[in-house]
């Protein structure tokens, strides 16, 4: 029988290659363990116990982070989680049709989001509420997508935060093209250069568009950071169903570096993201980051994780909570007191109240909205269809129908 390593980590040149597509029961258990450990190459600067681990390669990228900055990152994560929980509750109360929770992925997203400079562009999937927060997209602007009133109301060009993309992986190619454009315009090559970061999950790594994105970004030297949040689950399918080898190792096959970072460690996520964006803005892109994290909640509010994963696994990951380790670190070093934590909680509660107030008062869109902006230059045929429908609809007004 092959060892667990033969299945989970078929390192070229180290031991035999994987011998079967399907793991044995022992391998599954070992794989789960490997999953929650992250492997020896995991970049971690802050342990789950809140201990700062020195790292000569990555420390320079967060050397400027003061206690105040760390408090800021903590606040970002707490607020993001509060938004997420409030929106989840709003769905349960019938105010949203669906919600896509990010619970557990706060550090990955805030680290990446805070590494982005104003000139950098981001392409999200649909779970990047934390990145949206960092890009200045107010949480209320996310609600319409999930309430069914619109498909996203923020200005993606002005915010440099593309609209949520729901088709898995599509945005990776769109981001590759955008980054190619940055290069064609001569916007890479120095400290003020531009870069693009694209967000996707472990499930998306099986999509052709993601592989094509890897190819395109590499052959055109595009300043693109592929930020893969491996949250271990693509709805019900574990990462082992997407890949035989750790995802960050795929980068090697495409000819660019790949790094696995502890996605529950906001400092490490920030450091690795800053490095990757710097590489790109100086013309050394692309780069793949695999942020190793865990989806603490369901895929969406329609999902029931109890059908496919063990509660034990969730309990194990709770010990690696991204927010708790920063709180412990701040307390241990006396960089934050009760007053600080209370004020952050109060801010979070106030933001949640704003979100709720906004949500329940959102008007339904006017019925003619569906006919608007289908085309930039319009269409006479569509205008005729709209007019006919509005006339028909108006015929009911004041009647008994």
């Amino acid at each position, binding site marked *: 029988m092959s060892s667990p390593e033969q299945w989970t980590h078929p390192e070229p040149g180290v031991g035999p290659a994987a011998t079967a597509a399907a793991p044995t029961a022992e391998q599954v258990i070992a794989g789960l363990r490997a999953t929650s450990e992250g492997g020896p190459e995991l970049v971690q600067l802050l342990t789950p116990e809140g201990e700062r681990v020195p790292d000569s390669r990555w420390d320079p990228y967060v050397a400027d982070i003061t206690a105040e900055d760390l408090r800021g990152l903590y606040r970002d994560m707490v607020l993001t989680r509060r938004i997420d929980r409030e929106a989840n509750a709003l769905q349960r109360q019938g105010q949203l049709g669906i919600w896509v929770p990010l619970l557990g992925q706060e550090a990955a997203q805030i680290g990446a989001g805070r590494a982005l400079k104003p000139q950098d562009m981001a392409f999200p999937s649909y779970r990047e509420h934390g990145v949206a927060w960092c890009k200045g997209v107010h949480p209320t602007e996310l609600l319409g997508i999930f309430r069914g009133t619109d498909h996203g109301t923020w200005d993606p060009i002005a915010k440099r935060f593309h609209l949520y993309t729901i088709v898995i992986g599509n945005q990776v190619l769109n981001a590759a093209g955008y980054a190619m454009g940055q290069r*064609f315009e001569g916007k890479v090559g120095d400290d003020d250069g531009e870069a693009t970061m694209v967000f996707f999950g472990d499930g998306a790594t099986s999509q052709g568009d993601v592989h094509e994105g890897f190819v395109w970004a590499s052959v055109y030297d595009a300043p693109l950071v592929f930020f893969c949040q491996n949250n271990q689950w693509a709805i019900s399918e574990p990462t082992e169903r997407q890949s035989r080898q750790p995802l960050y190792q795929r980068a090697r096959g495409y000819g660019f570096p790949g790094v696995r970072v502890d996605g529950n460690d906001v400092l490490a996520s920030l450091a690795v993201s800053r490095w990757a964006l710097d590489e790109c803005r100086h013309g050394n892109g692309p780069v793949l980051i695999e942020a190793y994290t865990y989806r603490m909640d369901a895929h969406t509010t329609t999902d029931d994780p109890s059908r496919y994963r063990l509660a034990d696994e969730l309990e194990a990951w709770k010990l690696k909570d991204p927010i708790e380790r920063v709180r412990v670190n701040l307390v241990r070093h006396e960089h934050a007191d009760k007053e600080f934590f209370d004020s952050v909680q109060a801010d979070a509660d106030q933001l949640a109240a704003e979100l709720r107030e906004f949500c329940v008062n959102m008007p339904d869109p006017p019925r003619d909205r569906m006919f608007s902006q289908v085309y930039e230059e319009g269409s006479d045929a*569509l205008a005729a269809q709209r007019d006919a429908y509005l006339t028909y609809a108006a015929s009911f007004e004041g009647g008994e129908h």
Partner: protein
Amino acid sequence: MATPVMNQAGDEAASATRTVTLGKSLNLGLRAAMEADPKVIVMGEDVGKLGGVFRITDGLQKDFGEQRVLDTPLAESGIIGTAVGLAIRGFRPVCEIQFDGFIFPAFDQIVSQVAKLHFRSQGRIRLPMVIRVPFGGGIGAVEHHSESPESYFAHTAGLKVVSCSNAVDAYWMIQQAIRCDDPVLFFEPKRRYYEKGELDVGATPDPLFSSRVLRTGTAATLVTYGPSVKTCLESAAAAAEEGTELEVIDLRALSPMDLTPVYESVRKTGHLVVVSEAPEEASLASEIAARVQQECFYSLEAPVLRVTGFDTPYPPSKLEEHFLPDLDRVLDAVDRSLGW
């Protein structure tokens, strides 16, 4: 609608009429568009050094450089998906899909992103991109090189779809499509690439989204587009020899369609035959039939008839002459309509 690109130099040679093939005309149109706007870039498989497998982009990379004429990796979803990002960035990408049957790997990007981003963003994102597709059969090719997939795209809201049928239109329509701020699927009749026309680059073209009456007649109306236009003109010439005058309308714009000239024609002739290479079921021909019966019900003296490819996969090329609408099938349909 932006003003069509006119000849810039104003020199006499430029405004003189010259004989060009449809393929060369597209090449000239692309060149004019690239000269007029530095944001126009051409991308696709083999479009650079080779000049495209049909040579439509011949010489463009040499003159405009590798950053404006991109030989891309061999992945159609990649071509369209990255073009979306480039368009968001402010470029005006002109993508070539090498053959009709190879557009399907890009179908997801076209339908999910290209068609919907303007609507999704409530107009904040514009995608002024063109997707050029050599389409249709008649060249004796292997499978996947002779298809007519236009109705998939006409069916998709958010896309505009056009097809040129002759060398003169090719020159203007490609430039108009590039200047259009909506994404345009541009279907090129590949078996007509070598048909010649008299091009006057100083002329004023018709608007892009307009159909055109190519031949007037009173007995019956033929509506068609792309490669079948020539077939219909030949059919009309043959019918005229027997004393039957057919009106021929080149649709040009497939989505949105400009059917006003069709309605006017049908009100005059009372008979309509729609001709297209695409399979019949759920086709543009069917759409035209539906709209005409709705608008011209009391003018019709016979049901609208369709002469199309059959509802089969495109056959091996030794059989394509039976699949493609030809003069005899068109005139047979005209006879059936007139004899109704």
